[in-house]
């Protein structure tokens, strides 16, 4: 009986989560005439025209390519610099470590709106405006602290004796780190990478401010559907669905770690 109640609660909650997404999917498979003309819960004239528009027009699909390029760059940079730092925080105490750790957290909490304009000026002045690397570096502001926190949480769980044994066996630090330590925290690295990917993918304010044409992300391209001839609702919905896909694809692999990642490695 109790199980029944839980099942009903979960069914209602999951329904609440899925209905708006379903509505977007529904719209993306309709023609514009059907969207604005009739009101129906499922498409009567199933059409893939909206997806076709996006996948055949470079100004549309390049948005996806741009987003993926800077997201991957950001993930690689963040993880690379965060690994040694997280190791240092988890194993050693050094002057100012606690303050530094807190300072990193404040950057995760910094409102992007505060940084939008200075970032624009900074990257313009060093000639990086409208490049993928500019967005990747800007997103490091919140992704590097996040990666350090998550990785530190995972590294804590690895006993220190492993390090000591490796040194006694004559491993140098870099070799120990890559050959022994990294495989031990592989799931942690995966989770941290996933979160960097995710937060870089969903962020719009900075990526839009720092790009104009060549590195414009898909999320910013979506505003294009407002034109003189009215809204192209179908294409807008299709573009939205395509931005949900990458997350939906990778989420299955990290499902058991997602809470640990959100808890900054502290569960």
């Amino acid at each position, binding site marked *: 009986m109790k199980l029944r*109640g*839980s099942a009903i*609660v*979960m069914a209602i*909650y999951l329904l609440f989560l*899925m209905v*708006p*997404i379903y*509505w977007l999917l529904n*719209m993306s498979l309709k023609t514009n005439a059907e*969207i*604005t003309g009739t*009101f129906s*819960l499922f498409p009567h004239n199933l059409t893939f025209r909206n997806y076709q528009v996006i996948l055949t027009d470079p100004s549309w699909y390049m948005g996806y390519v741009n987003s993926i390029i800077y997201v991957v760059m950001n993930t690689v940079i963040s993880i690379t*610099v965060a690994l*040694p*730092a997280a190791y*240092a925080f*988890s194993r*050693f105490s*050094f002057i100012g470590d606690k303050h530094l750790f*807190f300072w*990193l*957290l*404040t*950057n*995760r*909490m*910094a*409102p*992007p709106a*505060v*940084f939008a*304009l200075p*970032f624009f000026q900074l990257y313009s002045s060093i000639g990086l405006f409208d490049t993928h690397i500019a967005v990747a*570096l800007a997103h490091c*502001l919140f992704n*590097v*602290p996040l990666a350090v926190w998550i990785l530190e949480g995972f590294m804590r769980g690895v006993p220190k004796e492993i390090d000591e044994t490796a040194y006694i066996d004559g491993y140098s630090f870099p070799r120990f780190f890559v050959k022994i330590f990294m495989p031990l925290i592989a799931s942690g690295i995966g989770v941290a990478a996933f979160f960097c990917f*995710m937060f870089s*993918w*969903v*962020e*719009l*304010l900075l990526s839009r401010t720092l790009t104009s044409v060549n590195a414009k992300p898909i*999320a910013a391209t979506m505003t294009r559907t407002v034109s003189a001839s009215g809204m192209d*609702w179908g294409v*807008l919905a299709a573009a*939205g669905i395509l*931005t949900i896909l990458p*997350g939906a694809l990778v*989420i299955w692999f990290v*499902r*058991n770690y997602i*809470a*640990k990642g959100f*808890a*900054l490695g*502290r*569960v």
Partner: protein
Amino acid sequence: MQKIQNNKAWLLVLPVLVLVAFSAVVPLMTVVNYAFNDTFGNNQFFWAGLEWFDEMVHSDRLHGALGRQVLFSAIILAIEVPLGIFVALNMPKQSFWASFCLVVMALPLLIPFNVVGTIWQIFGRTDIGLLGHSLAALGVDYNYTNDPIDAWATVIVMDVWHWTSLVALLCYAGLQSIPQAYYQAAKIDQASRWAVFRYIELPKMKGVLLIAILLRFMDSFMIYTEPFVVTGGGPGNATTFLSIDLVKMAVGQFDLGPAAAFSLMYFLVIMLVSWVFYTVMTNLDKAEAGQ
């Protein structure tokens, strides 16, 4: 774990320090520079002292935005935290269904912020949206572009939709760490459902719940994209939160001085709250390690 005292560890932290300093300190100093100077364009700056801060502290506009922001964050926390706990308590424990729930619940978290806005903007429209259309069919006079109450309701429901799962996922992870023996002991003692929640589940969730509240407070306090896409800050200024107002001021009107002073105060508030949470959190960590 006992840590080794070693200042060479700084070398390992150095790359992070350089990278984050480049992304955080340089722009922050630009903001500080604007906050204390006045400019008439063409890159000439004049010392303005605390003028902008003075102006901002006494500006009705800032007070309005701050008031709306605090109200918004308070409502969000008041809804999402209890709801998240409730959902976590009702989640299936193990099995395929647990995984299924986890994946579906995490889905809204992975949608780009402006797409979240777009989804709800469409969903709430009375002509083509399911929600707006259904409400209109039920005879409810709902229009989020004209009515401030409806606009608020839409933005809040959207945020609940977007982020409640985060609270639920964290609480679920906390609940998973409770050994089965605790529940058996409670059963022997014939503890009520409430007593189990109050004395077993809630204390075990304290740590993750704190993180959930911290994240939800911070992210709702700096929310920008989602309400901006749905309402554009309107009708009037009804849903103009701090970040929206800040971007309007800095980019829209190019009032750099006041916007910068505003940014600094905004950032300080966030730092202060982060620090409080961080202190409580590390003390909790220590208390748990001491047990």
